[in-house]
């Protein structure tokens, strides 16, 4: 009955339904128009030339992907945590980002014994924490003890155990003299005192050290000696720091006198890349980290500055598993070193902020030696090496030896946007010379799960190690320590003792000439003699900033310090 009424109301002859199509077309037009409007470039007026004199005051709005999971700088292992930690706390020494040399900071001078097992630091007398308590040798002792051993009663982990292996104790000889003692020679300790990356040795006040892990989630209780002090910490959202009044001990090498210029810095956590760049363009943010390679050119065109620094440590590398078939064959390893087109990767995947690796060490690390002769694209030579070793091209183009295909399994991390496209380009090139490279590029937790079985399951592990010291090669590749290429008695043609000794020499001396010689020997061993590693590219930290922002410093580990940063007119 009601159907009758409805049918009378809609008693038009039923036509072929055109309206849904019209509606869909209209929706498509709206979406396309919206997208075009959204992504079209906006003209930004050219900023007037600013004067070169630093301006005091102002708030810097900064953006990055990560957020601090805890305000405790000694615990923090992600980028945001080490970034903020560097501005709240200070270190004993400052490593010059250009030369890699260790220069004074909270320690004015130091000596060490010939064995490199005892390091004596003479501290500045004028340093205080933001709660007024003095910084002295007792504080250094309390910090290092807790840093290396942790404190189970307070739920504090042994955050620094990996950085300071073999630590025995710290002695406070007098108020401003501290002696740190180790069980075995640790040349890299000097650089470790300047370390500004994961779980950094920044000094906390005695009151902070007495707090347990839960209490340390109250940022206002974390007291350091740095140029800034915590004002607030909102997890996942932002961290706010304010200027420390009376700060007067920035590293002499920087050449900055007195307090920081900025009144306040807000570190905003913005996970989505387009929101970071959009906020920068619209002026809500003054500077942002984590700039994607495809954003660099558009931002430069819109009048923003791109500043960057290569990460110091190893390059992004392919570590070969020397005891697993087929990477246990040196011909295969060398063929891979020669088998990929570096120019192609450079032009299609990298930007000016990055560079193709020319050694397993990044160029900014002391002792770096250019190996681009061996690390070149030479597919003919690669093919020849494989032919000589008995690898015959099979039916599908992939080489075969003794009935087994030349297939390799690679494990990589997808955290850096450049990784996957670079590896895929290499996969293509290697396929042309008959090598089947199977890629598994996954997020960090999956990578960690798989790397536990790296010795038996993976031919190549692709990662990097950030540490601005040639001893990073020992830490990472020595059969006694990291053994990233799994050099054991089962690795054919490799003298395990030789590897341990050549790499271990790096820890035995701080004499620059000797160190340089040992570093050269280590790189030769890893790249030429045993071809244990195939370096790919040097990763970078890239910042995009408005043109009125000045003075953001990249330190030797490519972390940022804001003590010298200021905002000019035109804000």
């Amino acid at each position: 009955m009601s159907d009758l009424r409805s049918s009378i109301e809609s008693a038009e002859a039923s036509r072929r339904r055109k309206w849904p199509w019209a509606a869909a077309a209209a929706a498509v037009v709206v979406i396309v128009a919206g997208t075009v409007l959204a992504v079209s470039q906006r003209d930004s007026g050219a900023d007037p030339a600013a004067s070169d004199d630093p301006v005091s005051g102002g708030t810097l709005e900064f953006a990055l992907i990560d957020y601090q999971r805890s305000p405790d700088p000694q615990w923090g292992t992600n980028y945001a945590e080490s970034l903020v930690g560097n501005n709240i706390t200070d270190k004993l020494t400052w490593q010059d980002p250009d030369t890699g040399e260790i220069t004074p900071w909270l320690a004015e001078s130091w000596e060490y014994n010939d064995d490199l097992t005892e390091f004596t630091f003479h501290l500045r007398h004028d340093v205080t924490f933001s709660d007024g308590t003095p910084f002295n040798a007792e504080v250094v002792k309390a910090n290092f003890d807790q840093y290396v051993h942790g404190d189970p009663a307070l739920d504090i982990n042994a955050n620094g155990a990996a950085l300071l292996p073999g630590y025995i104790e710290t002695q406070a000889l007098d108020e401003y003299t501290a002696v740190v003692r180790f069980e075995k020679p640790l040349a890299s300790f000097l650089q470790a005192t300047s370390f500004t990356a994961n779980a950094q040795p920044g000094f906390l006040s005695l009151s902070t050290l007495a707090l347990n892990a839960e209490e340390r989630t109250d940022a206002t209780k974390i007291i350091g000696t740095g140029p800034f002090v915590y004002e607030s910490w909102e997890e996942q959202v932002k961290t706010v720091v304010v200027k420390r009044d009376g700060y007067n001990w920035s590293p002499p090498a920087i050449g900055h006198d007195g307090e920081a210029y900025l009144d306040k810095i807000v570190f905003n956590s913005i996970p989505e890349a387009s929101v970071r760049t959009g906020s920068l363009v619209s002026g809500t943010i003054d500077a942002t980290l984590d700039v994607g390679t495809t954003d660099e050119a558009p931002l430069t065109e819109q009048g923003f500055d791109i500043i960057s620094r290569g990460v110091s440590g190893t390059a992004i590398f392919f570590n070969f598993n020397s005891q697993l078939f087929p990477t246990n064959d040196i011909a295969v390893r060398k063929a891979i070193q020669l088998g990929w087109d570096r120019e192609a990767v450079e032009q299609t995947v990298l930007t000016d902020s990055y560079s193709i690796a020319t050694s397993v060490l990044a160029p900014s690390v002391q002792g770096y030696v250019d190996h681009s002769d061996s690390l070149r694209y030479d597919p003919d030579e690669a093919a020849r090496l494989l032919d000589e070793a008995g690898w015959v091209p099979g039916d599908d183009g992939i080489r075969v030896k003794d009935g087994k295909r030349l297939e390799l399994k690679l494990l990589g991390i997808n955290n850096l946007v450049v990784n996957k496209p670079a590896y895929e380009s290499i996969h293509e090139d290697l396929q042309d010379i008959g090598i089947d490279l199977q890629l598994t590029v996954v997020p960090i937790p999956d990578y960690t799960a798989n790397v536990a079985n790296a010795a038996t399951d993976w031919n190549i592990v692709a990662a990097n190690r950030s540490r601005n010291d040639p001893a990073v090669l020992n830490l990472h590749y020595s059969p006694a320590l990291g053994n990233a290429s799994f050099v054991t008695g089962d690795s054919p043609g490799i003298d395990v003792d030789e590897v341990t000794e050549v790499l271990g020499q790096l820890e035995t001396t701080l004499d620059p000439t000797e160190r340089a010689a040992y570093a050269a020997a280590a790189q030769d061993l890893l790249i030429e003699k045993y071809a244990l590693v195939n370096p790919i590219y040097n990763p970078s930290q890239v910042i995009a900033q408005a043109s009125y922002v000045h003075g953001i410093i990249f330190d030797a580990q490519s972390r940022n310090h804001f003590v010298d940063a200021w905002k000019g007119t035109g804000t």
Partner: protein
Amino acid sequence: MLRYAALKTGRALFVVWAAFTLTFALLFVLPADPVSLLFDPAEINTIPPEVREQVAANYGFDQPVLVQYLSRLGHALTGDFGHSVQSGKPVTEAVLAVLPSTLALAAGALVLALIIAFAIALIASSTRHRWVKELIESLPSASVSVPVFLSGILILQIFSFRLGWFPAFGDDGPSSLVLPIVTLAIPVSGPIAELLVRNFAIELRSGYVTTSWAKGATRAQVITGDVSRNASLPALTIAGITFGNLIAGSVITETVFAREGVGRMTQTAINTLDVPLVQGIVVFVAASFALINLIVDLIYPLLDPRLRAVLAAPAVRTA
């Protein structure tokens, strides 16, 4: 009636317990060792074994699985889900700290979604023009087809970066909520709108509506007086689905708009395999889900006389 209530409550409790046990089992069956994830992947080989043992002992990972399970369950019953492995904060505190932000977002999105859904249903059923009806009826499908991150970013680009009407990230008062609420309301409104449109159409053909027409009611009076009440009741049954959409949508919305919240915390907790935190969040979501369904089950008889009659009638024996 009491039996009905007891049955539903029991089922709700079972769901929560099952969620707890399943997450526990899954997280331990996964190949990653939770202790390894606390360290930088590049440095894992250089971590001394004593350090790893100490960290494992800290979090109780070194005890047999069954002991861990029972001890966790015991603590959970008192509301203690342990401490987040990544931040050291107690899990309950961590979730409660970000909960208000998600609640504000979810409540606002739900209200807006209901408004949109009713508007769609009312327009679709009251219009005389067929083309308007079909256009409006295609909106629910469109709303669930557009990915949340795409709509979120588009909305941000237009209303925040271009026009500057609203902030793009963070949480500075009511204006920060507008864009996220709109973004989240779009996919949530879809299923509700679809259901309401169908029900309105069905109710309009039923007997009591014909009676109203016969008694001289206008179209507006029929729709608002008779149809709306009866047609909206089934929307309660998809409260569970709606809640699920809100949670799933909030993960993406909170990430795009850089807001703190349970959704974003879930994403980071899973990425870092923060076992206690993931478990706490899953149990929390399961408990909320079960609670909402329980409330709906208990309210339904009160709202629908037909169900009330069925429950009140003495059980009929089938011979």
